[in-house]
């Protein structure tokens, strides 16, 4: 009785095993990797799961396409844990990055904060097969933001002014900010300000911005290229002591491609300032345009296409 129902199952198992063996080839290579990356002449451009990063990736992609390269887009690949291995293995050739955060990822103990020294340390920290091209003036860095009313009331425009404020300062930001060198510890060390910390886990998103507006927190960590800083009438506090890491946008590319595409991407970086980045982001957040449409319009306006 029991042997008959088992036979189809056995056949199925054999078929699955055969399929598995075929799919894995001889089992020594990653079955999901492209057959021979790079051999097709296609440049793979990746981006983080962050809309602003995708827009910059699209700038790179369209400039490369315009120069005659075949471009494959792999956008929204999560965060660094997910895409750095793909870059290192050569699966992705071009990736827009932020100098400071990438350096902190590769060298957690780094103490450089200004743009030039972060960049030069980054060149050494990257594996040999990855090269950073010239960085743009545009930054998308952590920044502390307060309301215009608070700024006017206590005359605060810089982190250095905070020490004179007679009311307690409550800082809001991602939970890990508590441990970062530019978190509460940094504020005490660089500016002598004791602050209370509230963890808000949305990376300077709507919850953080609303908490600044309604006064739940005095100041919040919002990325400097966030268009809402201007539209919400926030004041971004200056950082005269250079507490925050520089976060210049920089294309990270495969070493064997670097010389071929350097001039193309350098031309983009040259035009990309923080104000331009904010305006690009704004077209996404307020006009809801696709990254491709935003990139084409900007590149055309800058004379970088055709």
């Amino acid at each position: 009785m029991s042997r008959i129902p088992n036979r189809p199952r056995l056949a199925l198992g054999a078929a699955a095993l055969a399929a598995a063996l075929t799919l894995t080839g001889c089992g020594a290579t990653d079955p999901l990797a492209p057959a021979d990356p790079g051999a097709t002449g296609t440049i793979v451009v990746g981006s983080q799961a962050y809309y602003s990063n995708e827009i910059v990736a699209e700038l790179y992609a369209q400039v490369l396409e315009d120069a005659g390269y075949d471009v494959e887009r792999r956008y929204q690949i999560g965060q660094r844990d997910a895409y750095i291995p793909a870059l290192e293995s050569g699966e992705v050739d071009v990736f827009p990055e932020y100098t400071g955060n990438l350096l902190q990822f590769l060298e957690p103990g780094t103490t450089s904060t200004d743009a030039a020294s972060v960049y030069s340390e980054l060149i050494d920290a990257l594996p040999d097969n990855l090269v950073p091209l010239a960085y743009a003036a545009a930054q998308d860095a952590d920044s502390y933001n307060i309301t215009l009313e608070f700024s006017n009331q206590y005359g605060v425009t810089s982190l250095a002014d905070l020490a004179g404020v007679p009311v307690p300062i409550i800082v809001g930001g991602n939970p890990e900010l508590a441990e970062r060198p530019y978190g509460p510890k940094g504020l005490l060390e660089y500016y002598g300000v004791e602050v209370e910390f509230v963890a808000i886990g949305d990376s300077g998103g709507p919850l953080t911005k609303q908490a600044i507006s309604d006064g739940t927190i005095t100041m919040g960590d919002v990325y400097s290229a966030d268009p809402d800083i201007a539209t919400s009438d926030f004041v971004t506090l200056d950082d005269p002591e250079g507490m925050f890491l520089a976060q210049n946008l920089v294309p990270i590319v495969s070493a064997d491609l670097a010389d071929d595409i350097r001039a193309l991407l350098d031309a983009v970086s040259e035009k990309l300032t923080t104000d331009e980045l904010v305006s690009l982001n704004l077209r996404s957040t307020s006009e809801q345009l696709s990254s491709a449409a935003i990139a084409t319009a900007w590149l055309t306006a800058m004379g970088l296409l055709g």
Partner: protein
Amino acid sequence: MNLFVDALAWLFSLDRLIGGNSIPQRVLEHAGYTVLSLIVSAVIAIPVGFAIGHFRRGREVTVALSGAARALPSLGLLTVLALMLGLGAAPAVAVIVFVVLGTPSVLAGAYSGIESVDPATVKAARAMGMTEWQVLWKVEVPLGLPLLVGGLRSAALQIVATATLAAYIGLGGLGSYIFTAIPLRQYDVMLGGAILIMVLAIVIDALFAGLGRLVTPRGVRHRRRESERSLALSARPARGTTL
């Protein structure tokens, strides 16, 4: 294995006992939100559940409503409510989210407990001249209590696991270790935090398991054991025939 050792080293370091981020502090926050939310869930769901069970009415509507509310992703609900009420109301937001999560289980435990009572028993109680109130409190509730405790138990487990999200809106709890450690890639802290949540969940589950045994009426317990025994006896010859 090394990671596990690192996590244990992190857990049992003396540094974990001091400051605003200490383990006792975080456990208290986490357990506090869990217990408070469970109490609110119970206050809402038990009377409604008893009413549904006793009058045998309104079950479909209530179950559909509470089930639909529970299907909302907790993190999304937390964000939307925090945006609506403001982060100043963060504790209330967290409790609402956890209550939405916990209420359906308590509700199900309450009404199914009452519905599980043998109709003959209820009829007998009425025949003895008990008022409806007495039928509910002296017959249906005591006999349905084990199922109610079961409902509370599963609600508590879901809340204790989801209370991790409290850290997302600055309320601390054990989730703050995990939320902090992920971007910093401190795997020992992530695992340590996860272990703490597991231990807390197991402790709460064990408490409810004990409570469940305590509230099972002696007569029911005795009868259940007897019926189990007779079931086992009747099962033996049945198995024999298939051999």
